[in-house]
């Protein structure tokens, strides 16, 4: 049940990864980097792309899982400790995206004041996905690609006429500090490069596999950069207040038509793949726990992790901005360590023989 196909990893990057960067991230970026938000985002993509390329290089050289590599180098106990740390990290890294998605759903999809219960079913979906392992990530990616492609194409086409692209000028106007802080504080949204590391040994490396994954990642990057371009072209000086960005950019074309806000259909559609992508770090967390305690029935760690996430979502219900500030401005180094330093260092791990995990 922990098998995933290379095609599905490609779809994960092309069809699901871009959506996570279309809710709060653009507004944060506009606040930090102003009209240079593309440079700040491109810096992050370049770094993350480099890490993915390195991990794919590793995949081409070994059939071992990441756990096997750690075990070969540090022994079983050492590998379990590191997996324990990663389990904690995945749980930690899932908090802000889940709160982000919760606020998005409750603010955009309802006219009145909805209760928290409206979002609670997410945790049932997440629990189910966690029990099913990597296989469900792959299947979700298969389904997500066409949905995301159509939704984003329509949303962007509706938004383009409103965009004034000269708003992105002058290049470098925000200064190096603004661009750098935009990149640094955006690290929370760039945890995707960690997933291929944990997929190691769970997918069959094909010829030109790295090129295919990189191409898919480049496609996802291009979509996000286009989205940010249109976003800043539409809002320029007031861009920083546009949280729930994906629901904001297309409304100016549709609001006064006789059809009304037909773009909401596509925003709804885009929210679905996003839900499944938010499950990925939670699934990864459960995966790590199962590696630490392989005899344990997956239902128990899945219930525990999703229960913890549910409690976190309840307790942090009114603390989104505090959590965002903490994660982006204070704890950026945690993301840098786990998402960039560890995958790069994994190239140094001993590539002994490992079991192929199906």
């Amino acid at each position, binding site marked *: 049940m922990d098998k995933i196909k290379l095609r599905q990893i490609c779809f994960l990057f092309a069809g699901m990864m871009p959506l996570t960067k279309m809710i709060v991230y653009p507004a944060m970026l506009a606040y930090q980097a102003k009209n240079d938000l593309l440079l700040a985002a491109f810096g992050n993509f370049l770094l993350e792309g480099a890490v993915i390329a390195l991990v794919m290089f590793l995949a081409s050289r070994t059939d071992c899982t990441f756990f096997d590599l750690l075990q070969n180098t540090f022994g079983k106990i050492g590998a379990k400790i590191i997996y324990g740390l990663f389990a904690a990290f995945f749980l930690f890294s899932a908090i802000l995206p889940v709160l982000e998605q919760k606020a998005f759903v409750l603010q955009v999809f309802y*006219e*009145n*004041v*909805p209760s928290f219960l*409206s979002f609670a079913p997410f945790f*049932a979906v997440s629990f189910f996905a966690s*029990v099913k392992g990597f296989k469900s990530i792959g299947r979700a990616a298969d389904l997500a690609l066409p949905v995301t492609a159509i939704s984003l194409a329509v949303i962007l086409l509706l938004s383009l006429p409103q965009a004034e692209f*000269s708003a992105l000028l002058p290049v470098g106007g925000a200064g190096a500090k603004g661009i750098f802080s935009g990149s640094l504080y955006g690290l929370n949204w760039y945890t995707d490069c960690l997933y291929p590391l944990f997929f190691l040994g769970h997918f069959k490396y094909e010829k030109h596999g790295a090129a295919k994954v990189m191409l898919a990642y480049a496609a996802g990057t291009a979509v996000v950069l286009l989205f940010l371009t249109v976003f800043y072209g539409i809002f320029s000086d007031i861009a920083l*207040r546009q949280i*729930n960005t994906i629901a904001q950019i297309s409304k100016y074309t549709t609001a006064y038509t006789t059809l009304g806000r037909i773009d909401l259909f596509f925003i709804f559609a885009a929210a679905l793949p996003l839900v499944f992508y938010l499950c990925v770090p939670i699934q990864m967390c459960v995966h790590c726990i199962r590696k630490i305690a392989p005899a344990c029935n997956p239902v128990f760690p899945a219930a525990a992790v999703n229960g913890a996430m549910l409690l976190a979502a309840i307790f942090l219900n009114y603390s989104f901005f505090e959590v965002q500030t903490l994660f982006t401005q204070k704890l950026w180094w945690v993301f840098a360590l786990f998402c960039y330093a560890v995958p790069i260092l994994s190239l140094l791990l001993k590539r002994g023989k490992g079991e192929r995990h199906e």
Partner: protein
Amino acid sequence: MNKFWTRVLLIAAAALFLLFFSNDFGLINIQQTTIVTAIGIDRSQEEGKIDVSAQIAVPNESKASSVLVQGAETVGEAIAEFNGKTGWYPTLVHCRLVLLGAEAVSENVFASLDYFLRSEFVEDSCLVAVCETTAAETLQANSPVGDLPSSAITKVLSSQAQKTGQVSVCNLRDFAKGYFSDSASGYLPVISVKKEASKEGGNQSSGNSQGADSASGGSQSADGSGASAQSSNDSDVFDASKTALFFQGKRVAELTAEETLAFNLADTKTDFAYGDIEVFENGSKVTYNLKMKIGKKSMKLKFEDGVPVFTFRIRAKAQISDADKASGIVEVAKTALVPAHVLRAAEEMFRAQLQSAFEKTRESGCDLFRLRQKLYRFCYPQYASHRETLLQDARIFYDIRFDTLR
């Protein structure tokens, strides 16, 4: 996990997922919800306070109502009062229009307008306009075609009206962008109510009376003046041909209808306009009504020998729509051929109107044509040295050329 539990979980997840896209657990009963279609903001008689009026469409009523809250400190307080005094919970998601009273714009309007930017439940795609009188009176006007006044005004301010150049339409997002930009400038159409048309029946008068009743019973009184105004058969039409200019949130100048048309030809999304051109033919004055299709328009800022030069460039094709003289059948047949002297007169007229509009921006400080923004974006090295004096120092060129359609 066996297949049975997999299926049970799948069905449970699917059922629960319905909650995700529904609002069965919403806190507000739809039967107690009013849909606010427009908000009017006026300066109150009490110093430092505002009067807020709302045009509302009640779901289970067939008629529109207006309610007024007087002497509120903030728009948010007034909205809360609507709920407290009437029992209706106002939803602003469908608010398509924000009207500012004539006196309200003498102070920084963003003291009130920022409410709509702060709230996640108000769309900043709503139109904003200034009233020639008070917003409350304007929202009580009697539309000749049976629309809600707010609906009639939104039609006057439609994107189609913008395309013909008669109105300078502005939504809250664009107005806020101008205010929060380096220029701190913006423009809004001025809505004036004119009693011109005659209406059969008086369907809407009862709607306003109902609204007055619904808001009564508290310190915030309902405004009944509109109800009496609507009891007659006189109908009102709305004119938005003038444009108010804003600097730092305050109204500082006003463009005439002709200047508004020239501004629209030069800057906004107008691509098909009508205009009257006066010429002298054989010693007598003749007025031609020209239909103009704008081919190209641009506004460029560049530096020549250290001096900022701002150039308006407009290319348009014209054809004769009408003339106030009896023409021969050959002239009527050749409406696409505009005499050269009429074209030159059109160029001169629009140049003069544009110049007049620009002079108003210079005098008032309103950076209507976004010179500072262009300086920042396209001439960044000169930005620091010229941003304060740009409006005064810039040399303006008007490169306007009209050609005949064929």
